[in-house]
């Protein structure tokens, strides 16, 4: 039997609701039991060493794992970052564990762990773009791990897996892609660092209600049949494969449920997408600028 390669994973939670973790638990094939116990792909085992919601150990025992993982795996580890990083107030809006009797700000941990990782998976819209915690007025100076790394001069390769929450297939598929083919090549990513495999197509182009749009049959209130454009749908500015992948094992998704898309995979969520139930004014879109130097997306 070939030796199984252990891929150590440190899963760090910042300014998050844990929704992306729960979403990943909803993975159907592979199931989460496959993921935890078995080899995600033959010969490759995800060794989930640190995840605060799942791991057996608490307190110092848990923090020791982080230190040990940094030292004992010569090829490094994968850092999964869930949630944004609150940077205001010396990072004291989010702390994990203690050092010398003082709480450790996430900013310190993130710097060390992102710097030493083989790659960073920015899981969810908060980790990818800042998301809800960075919504105006951004009370905690929250930012994405990508922006945080650039500001701190950390050039570890990263891939964004946005979504509020991210779809389990997007996360598992991204991990499998890295295991099989290595880190995504530039041509496999869109300009925001997302795999085109999942985020390459506009929801509007594949929407099952597209026929209504083309023939002008509009829903004027929620729960009506018809295109949801007038009640705020952001599907025509949002890139994801939701319309054909659907959610929860393919059972349903927002628009099939009569609910407008709120654009949760996009850098403009929530500020550019608000108000969520009003028609979107596309003139806001071109104003969304990506600053190559900082990775920050702003409304100009």
């Amino acid at each position, binding site marked *: 039997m070939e030796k199984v390669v252990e891929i150590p994973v440190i899963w760090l939670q910042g*300014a998050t609701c844990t*929704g992306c973790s729960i979403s990943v638990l909803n993975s159907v094939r592979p199931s989460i*039991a496959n993921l935890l116990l078995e080899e995600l792909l033959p010969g490759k085992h995800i060794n989930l060493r640190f995840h605060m919601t799942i791991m057996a150990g608490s307190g110092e*025992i848990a923090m020791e794992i982080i230190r040990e993982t940094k030292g004992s795996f010569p090829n490094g580890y994968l850092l999964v970052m869930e949630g944004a990083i609150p940077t205001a107030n010396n990072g004291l809006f989010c702390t994990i564990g203690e050092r010398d009797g003082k709480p450790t700000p996430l900013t310190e941990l993130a710097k060390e762990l992102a710097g030493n990782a083989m790659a960073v998976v920015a899981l969810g819209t908060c980790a990818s773009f800042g998301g809800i915690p960075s919504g105006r007025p951004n009370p905690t100076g929250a930012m994405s791990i990508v922006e945080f790394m650039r500001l701190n001069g950390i050039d570890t390769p990263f891939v964004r897996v946005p979504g*509020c929450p991210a779809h389990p297939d997007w996360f598992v598929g991204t991990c499998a892609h890295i295991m099989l083919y290595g880190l995504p090549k530039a041509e496999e990513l869109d300009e925001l660092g997302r795999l085109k495999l999942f985020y390459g197509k506009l929801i509007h182009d594949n929407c099952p209600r597209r026929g209504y749009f083309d023939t002008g049959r509009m829903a004027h209130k929620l729960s009506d049949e018809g295109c949801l454009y007038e009640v705020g749908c952001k599907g025509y500015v949002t890139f994801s494969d939701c319309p054909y992948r659907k959610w929860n094992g393919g059972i349903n998704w927002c628009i099939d449920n009569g609910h407008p898309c709120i654009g949760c995979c996009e850098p403009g969520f929530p500020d550019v997408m608000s108000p*969520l139930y009003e028609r979107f004014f596309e003139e806001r879109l071109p104003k969304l600028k990506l600053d190559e130097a900082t990775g920050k997306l702003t409304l100009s």
Partner: protein
Amino acid sequence: MPKIVIDPMTRIEGHMKIEVTLDSSGTIVDARSSGVLYRGIELILRGRDPRDAARITQRVCGVCPVPHGTASALCLDAAFGISDKIPENGLILRNLILGSEYVHNHILHFYHLCSLDYADVVRAASYPENDFEALRQFASRGELAPFLPRYVGDYRLNDDDNKALVLHYIQALEMRRKAHDMLALFGGRTPIQAGIVPGGVTSRPTTEKMVSFYWRARELYDFVVNAYLPDVLRVAKAYSDYFGIGAGCGNFITFGFFDLDGSKPDYARRKRLLVQGTTNKSLKHEELDLSQICEAIRYSWYDDDGTPNPQKEGAYSFIKAPRYKGLTHEVGPLARLLVNYASGNESVRKELKAVMSELSIGIDEMFSVMGRHIARAIEAKVIAEALCEWVLKLSPDEPTFVPYELPSDAEGIGIVDAPRGCLMHHVRIENSVIANYSIISPTTWNGSPMDDNGQHGAIEAALIGAKVRDWENPEEIVRIVRSFDPCLACAVHMTNLKGMPIGEVKVFA
């Protein structure tokens, strides 16, 4: 005196730190529960379209987003003047979506967050039966994360019970997911559903979805009856000393839930499957009086004007300290069970009596770590059963949503019990946007620090008096804390009750 600090407190939602002080015999004489992540969601809500709150507040918590979406929809219904006009279909669909969340949550909590404190996965990897093949393979690779490292010691289930618990841990991963699949049938997707909105629900029931929901609920009911509840009893028998540990403050409050009749605009008096109210060790049921809720911040990292200040002298948590009639109250499944027991809810009484007789315990033992686990399992059974009935009451051709006008100035309160306990949303709308939004969530109650009178929060109170046998492996502490199912992302809020006279707010739309 010696101190034990547990940070991070794992297998809960979010960022929590627990610090206890012990006397020389190892008895906990002081305890501090700290929430150590602050996001400021309420500030982010200000200035936005009120309807957006039912989406954004779900991001308060990804483990239990539906209760936030529901409480938000209820408070917006009240503000829009339609709280008594939600169509019957809309009420039922909201119950189905939230009920699915309860089933998911309770399974997740017992198996994936708690059972590793009682079951020995490492021993299970040596069992010869075919069922354990995957686990044996896993262990043979030599990397046992996330099941190791852990506290060494007190895993005392016999092999038969240990087998059952470990196999069900794995099976429960699948069952919890199935509860989420069920939720998505009418919720669109989950976590963070896209179905419940002010005015009702966006989805339309169809016959095939109803049948599909029914059979999913039946499968989950069977799992609760044949695995979850028996497993809780297995643990309760082996760890019967935990009927005497973690009693807590002895006061209980619930907002109830699952609206059975939407015609009364007052949520505090509305007919609900699990009733609203309070009780204490006397087990007398009292009606809910929202004007008795107040909140203290002396030990919380906020200045008097509500500005977050993690450097505040003497403070130790981002959680505030809500109190009812000036007293610490516990919220959650045990509170619901006891309030419903006290109020004479027959289905709850019947289930509880059956369990108490099997375990040969009295009601006094329910005030404990094991009591909380039992309450949660009984509740999962009651709710799964109700879901099977409710879904067949949907009418495919009837409306699920009532239109409304957006008011320029209005106010509303929504109350509901989330899986973890009392949840309140309050909105004030000015010039058609949110002027103020505040949330008091379950773990704000349970995980709160001391109040201005030095009265401990519910989790702290449950810790004080407990004995820690092995200071290196303080299992007692984590078992007590986890029995509350803390959710820290929910708990931390900057609700400013000084600007929120609950008693004067138009709760009745």
